[in-house]
């Protein structure tokens, strides 16, 4: 199946974030894996510094820019919302 440029970019961002989360998963003893709705900060998987590291790393590796204005402070930060906050077009 053909994917659009933006959806393939999203997939690259997703796999990059998951790769960066992997060592943190084992470090924090988080055994349930991460899905699109896992609250990354609330479950203690990452802290603010980890978040910054991940964002800067994704920006560099994927040549995209993080847009914090797309983050809803009440909904929280999930894998899904994090991917959506990177401008892909």
């Amino acid at each position, binding site marked *: 199946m053909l994917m659009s440029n933006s959806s393939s970019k999203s997939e690259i961002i997703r796999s990059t974030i998951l790769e960066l989360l992997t060592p943190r998963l084992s470090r924090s003893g988080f055994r349930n894996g991460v899905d699109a709705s896992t609250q990354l900060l*609330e479950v203690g998987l990452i*802290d603010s510094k980890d*978040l*910054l590291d991940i964002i800067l790393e994704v920006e560099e590796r994927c040549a995209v820019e993080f847009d*914090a204005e797309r*983050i*809803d*402070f*009440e909904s*929280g930060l999930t894998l899904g919302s994090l991917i959506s906050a990177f401008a892909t077009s």
Partner: protein
Amino acid sequence: MEGSICDNDAALSCNEALPSLLALFLASRRSYQNRPALWVEGRTFTYSELYDAAGRLAGVIRAARSHDAGYQRYQCGLLVNRTPTAYAAVLASLMVGSPYVPLNPRFPCRRLRDVLLSSAVDTIVVDHRSSAVVGPVLDSLPRPLTVLMPDAETAVDYAALPRGHRYIPRGEIEGTSPAAPTADCSAEDGAYLLFTSGSTGTPKGVLISHGNAAAYVNNARARYRPGPEDRFSQLFDFSFDLSVHDMFLAWSSGACLYCAPERAGVAGLGDFIRRCGLTFWFSVPATAAFMRQLRMLKPCSYPTLRWRLFCGEALPMGLARAWQEAAPNSIVENLYGPTEATVAFTAYRLPRQRRSELDELPTVPIGMPLAGQKVMLVDDNGKPMPDGEAGELCLGGSQVAAGYWRASGQSASRFQPPQCADAEGMRWYRTGDRAVMNREHGLIFLGRIDRQVKIRGHRVELMEVENAMRVAAATDMVAALPWPIGDDGLALGLVGLVARSQKTAAEIIDGCGDRLPDYMVPSQIYVVANWPLNGNGKTDYTSLTGLLRNADVELQ
């Protein structure tokens, strides 16, 4: 100005200086009972609702203590995150005349048990976000506690909780008559007891009295003139005394406190400021630096803000200027003060106009003492330095605590007056910070005279980290250093260095995590092949920092 002493004897322009934290809240409750006092977890509580919730908790605490004539010497522990129960519990403690003792549920259980054992806590309040740690914290505690669980349904699983303590769930609390506030609170009575990092490996307690706390809040009210239409940010945990500023400056003026949900972290703070229409912002510079790195400080991003206050660590000048542009209708102030001198002791208002002699400074000055407080720069012997010369910063006045909690030896060495007649008649605290007085901008912070650092605003004694590392690594040759250093010059975290160890990095890090809060745990452990020593045979920290900078060390 005489010698290096500098005071601020300006009378408070605020006519309503009140004697205690509770009196500040109660005055607003009388005037603004149906106005919002608190927004937390998506819900708004009016002053009346918050007072009623606190009164119910106070009623239970008082009833549980009624058999003990000496109850007034006890304290209330708060095992809470930022939840509705937490704020009610702060007020409930004050209503029954007990200092509150924050127990940060994110800290290791071992540390929380140390705090409980050091303090005089007889009652703890637990909220719904902290119930998972109750068991490990109370397990094997040698004295019985009353445990209020206002968020727990009646059917608490007592079998899973340590025996010997009395657990009171929601149903029992709701059936208790609210208590009226204790009337006999004096300025010397404790308001809160906080524990800070200690170089001996044991946290140091600082009991802040109502007189200390009210002196600070009354000063801040006169300086910032908040009103009932104001909306305050609340980003700090209760174990960080800057939370006292947020709560009681807001509640002394009929304003509303807005608690930033932690689920979106720093990335959600821009949305938080805009949608809540905040007018007061208070954070550590590290939070502001994260926001800047995420490009959240674009010009005119936050037009509702009137005040942006920073405290907890050095504020880089470039960061302050970036905030000034992001919130053009507000005033930037840099506050300074250790826990021992109650929240903040000096302040500097950053002028909007850029001036080369000011903007060339790496960090924003810390300014002049608040009203009624004094500062003095002294040499190693406590004698005042001549004008214009750097020295150790000493703080004197009504905001200075009486000493460390049950630690007379440590108190005697730090709560020392300078050796001069001008210093007589008030309490003094030697900060361990170096500063110099600039005639135009006031005090300029120059760094520490010991090995204390700030990590994301938290005070960290590197010796305490090293003590934990020695146990975890089973070796004596260890060092903890602030690393990496961000673009703004702020330390982003800590790393550990060891000469050699049979333990893996993961074991050392986990071992430290059992003893230390997360911000004190080294993120990485490096092995140093040739451990550098100075002429006295002691670890040469300058050389170790050089090895890190040159990447001349290996990951364990």
